[in-house]
């Protein structure tokens, strides 16, 4: 120990005796309820190795040197914009394709100049057409219904001229049938005479996390990875402006994963996708820069969420550099739309306006961990599907207040060098690596999903959290504490009409039934049979890339379900393991 540290250790001892002990005695405490960090907690700290500069390896201090919205540009709420960036707009989607097209036109008339960030309904996400018995009651509810290219074409009627698909970016929140949706975008471009290399889009295309959280899977993990490989190869060769995937730990954390599980599982999943690309013969730096991240999970634990983001950036950079031998810094970037936040599961149905306060804390964590000061989600998140415009306004204003009044974004990684934050970041990364290696020794992430390990670990963590809430170990204001009779349930009206028309949601199913009937009547059904046969033959050949076949299928107006049924026949369906 250096002389400096020795002196600190001695002073610390003295402090504990002279200051801490009397305070504990005064308040009748057996232990100091707080902690104070000193250089003793970070003895061999190497700034350049552990932190570095924002936008430089190992990216602990930030993915970029700075974010564009801070360069004097006004963000538009959840989506920081800049004239230099082409980005998709706010996540949206409902009803029949006609309804969503009209919504997009309305947004355009209100000044929106962003591409669609498409929420699909559950039948689409699970490979069922709107007229399937499996789809009953679900059509157009969690997003827009897309059964065939016809539906996709209708949505994109809102995107022409200055908003044509070579000038905007689209987001597709879809996983299991991601390659079908990519095929539709390609077919749409070809029909419009747009070179496909000009397309910009981000499909979520992160199927493995669906087995662990959210459950929007179709095929078993192995063939799902083959679909992933097909995306990686096809996008790398033909669609240079598409992101390959948008990896998210968020869904796993919301499903109950701990912070450490979120980190390790996200990293191990990302690394498995990278390995698919390498196994397919691609050079790591040729495709890793097209990997993006969506969002990790969050919680109310302010410090830990900031440490998590710092650890995640460093871990991803190390995976790329040390494990995959990447040389391009761009390959090592953890490119993500959002940083720390509180997570939807931190919001409460009870006294919901408290969620505003919670998300302001999340907005601070977000800004202090390298992102925009996003105060997300809007406070009425737990009240039902879809946020009110009032709640969105309040959330956006919270962000603006943090940025422009509190000036919270003026410093990058304000905790850099903090004895506390650096040691917490190190710990977080270490736990992440331990779990990462554990999954590798189980045979990798696919094996760990097939055995049910990851799903069960997450369910167990969810149950542990529930038990801690029920026995009062974890406190949630207004839910398991401070609920006495003198507490007020403060509410506010949500009166501004939402642009989603609830009547249209109700009518979406019947509208889509008619649309599908017309599609199936008007198309050449002999060529549909042929392209589906070709798809089946290709699917049986493991080495073949299915995307060219899927493009042929969608051009013939084959439906999502027809394509998925053929693949279900070849690949099988995933059945959940027991809990």
């Amino acid at each position, binding site marked *: 120990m250096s002389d400096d540290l020795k002196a600190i250790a001695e002073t610390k001892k003295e402090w504990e005796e002279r200051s801490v002990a009397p305070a504990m005695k005064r308040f009748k405490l057996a232990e100091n309820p707080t902690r104070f960090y000193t250089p003793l907690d970070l003895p061999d700290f190497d700034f350049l190795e552990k932190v570095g500069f924002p936008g430089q390896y190992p990216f602990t201090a930030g993915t970029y040197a700075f974010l564009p919205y801070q360069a004097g540009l006004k963000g538009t709420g959840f989506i920081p914009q800049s004239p230099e960036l082409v980005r998709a707009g706010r996540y949206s989607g409902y009803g029949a394709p006609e309804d969503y097209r009209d919504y997009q036109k309305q947004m355009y008339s209100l000044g929106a100049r962003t591409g669609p960030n498409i929420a699909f309904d*559950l*039948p689409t*996400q*699970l490979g*069922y057409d709107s007229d399937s*018995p*499996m*789809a*009953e*009651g*679900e059509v157009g*509810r*969690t997003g827009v219904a897309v059964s065939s290219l016809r539906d996709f074409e209708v949505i994109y009627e809102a995107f022409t001229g200055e908003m044509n698909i070579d000038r905007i970016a689209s987001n597709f929140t879809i996983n299991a049938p991601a390659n079908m949706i990519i095929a539709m975008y390609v077919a749409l471009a070809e029909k419009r005479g747009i070179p496909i290399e000009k397309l910009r889009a981000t499909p979520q295309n992160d199927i493995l996390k*669906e087995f662990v959280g*959210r*459950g*929007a*899977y179709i095929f078993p993990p192995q063939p799902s990875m083959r679909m992933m490989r097909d995306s990686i190869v096809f996008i790398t060769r033909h669609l240079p402006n598409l992101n390959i995937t948008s990896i998210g730990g968020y869904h796993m954390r*919301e*499903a*109950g994963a701990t912070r450490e599980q979120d980190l390790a599982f996200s990293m191990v999943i990302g690394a498995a996708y990278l390995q698919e690309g390498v196994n397919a013969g691609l050079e790591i730096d040729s495709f890793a820069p097209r990997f993006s991240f969506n969002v990790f999970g969050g919680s109310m634990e302010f410090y830990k969420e900031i440490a998590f983001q710092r650890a995640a950036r460093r871990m991803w950079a190390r995976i790329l550099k040390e494990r995959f031998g990447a040389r391009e810094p761009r390959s090592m970037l953890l490119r993500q739309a959002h940083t720390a936040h509180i997570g939807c*599961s931190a919001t*409460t*149905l*009870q006294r919901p306006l408290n969620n505003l306060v919670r998300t302001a804390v999340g907005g601070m964590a977000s800004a202090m961990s390298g992102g925009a000061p996003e105060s997300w989600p809007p406070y009425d998140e*737990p*009240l*039902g*599907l879809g946020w009110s415009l009032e709640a969105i306004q309040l959330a956006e204003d919270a962000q603006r207040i943090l940025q422009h009044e509190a000036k919270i974004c003026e410093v990058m990684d304000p905790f850099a060098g903090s004895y506390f934050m650096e040691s917490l970041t190190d710990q977080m990364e270490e736990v992440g690596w331990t779990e990462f290696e554990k999954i590798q020794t189980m045979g990798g992430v696919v094996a760990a999903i097939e055995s049910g390990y990851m799903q069960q670990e997450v*369910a167990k963590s*969810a*149950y542990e959290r*529930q038990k801690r*809430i*029920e026995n009062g170990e974890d406190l*949630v204001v207004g*839910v*398991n504490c401070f609920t006495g009779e003198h507490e007020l349930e403060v509410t506010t009206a949500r009166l501004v009409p939402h642009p989603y028309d609830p009547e249209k949601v109700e009518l979406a199913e019947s509208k889509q039934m008619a649309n599908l009937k017309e599609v199936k009547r008007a198309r050449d059904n002999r060529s549909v049979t042929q392209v589906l046969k070709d798809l089946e033959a290709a699917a049986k050949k493991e080495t073949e890339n299915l995307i060219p076949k899927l493009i042929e299928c969608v051009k013939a107006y084959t439906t999502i379900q027809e394509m998925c049924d053929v693949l279900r026949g070849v690949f099988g369906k995933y*059945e*959940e393991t*027991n*809990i």
Partner: protein
Amino acid sequence: MGQERKIRVLIAKPGLDGHSRGAKVVAYGLRDAGFEVIYTGLHQVPLQIVNTAIQEDVDVIGLSILSGAHLTLTQRIIQGLQEKGAGDKMVIVGGVISPDDTLKLKGMGVAEVFTSGTSIRQISQFIKDKVRTGALASFEGKGD
């Protein structure tokens, strides 16, 4: 006469919603509270749930739905139970359900709706109370 028969609960995920945290946490919790719990897994059509409930001879069916499709799906399941002579089974629903829809669900015959923030203790107590007061007709006299 042996031990009192445990109350049998089916925790089901109807429709395409894959958010299973609530369903699994409630399944674990009720199991620990002494119930016999069967979990269906995801992506069940109403008829599958009706059939499982009958085959497994459950007393209570807990439906977990967070996709907004709760009215249609619950209606189908209650209809299916009635058509198969199992209308006496208690149906409870959990999920993101508005107060208006809670009333509609109760109008269909749902015994209770549990939303976010509910403790497992409350659910378990509710089921036990219903059993004790005899509201759970199918449970009565089933000791083996």
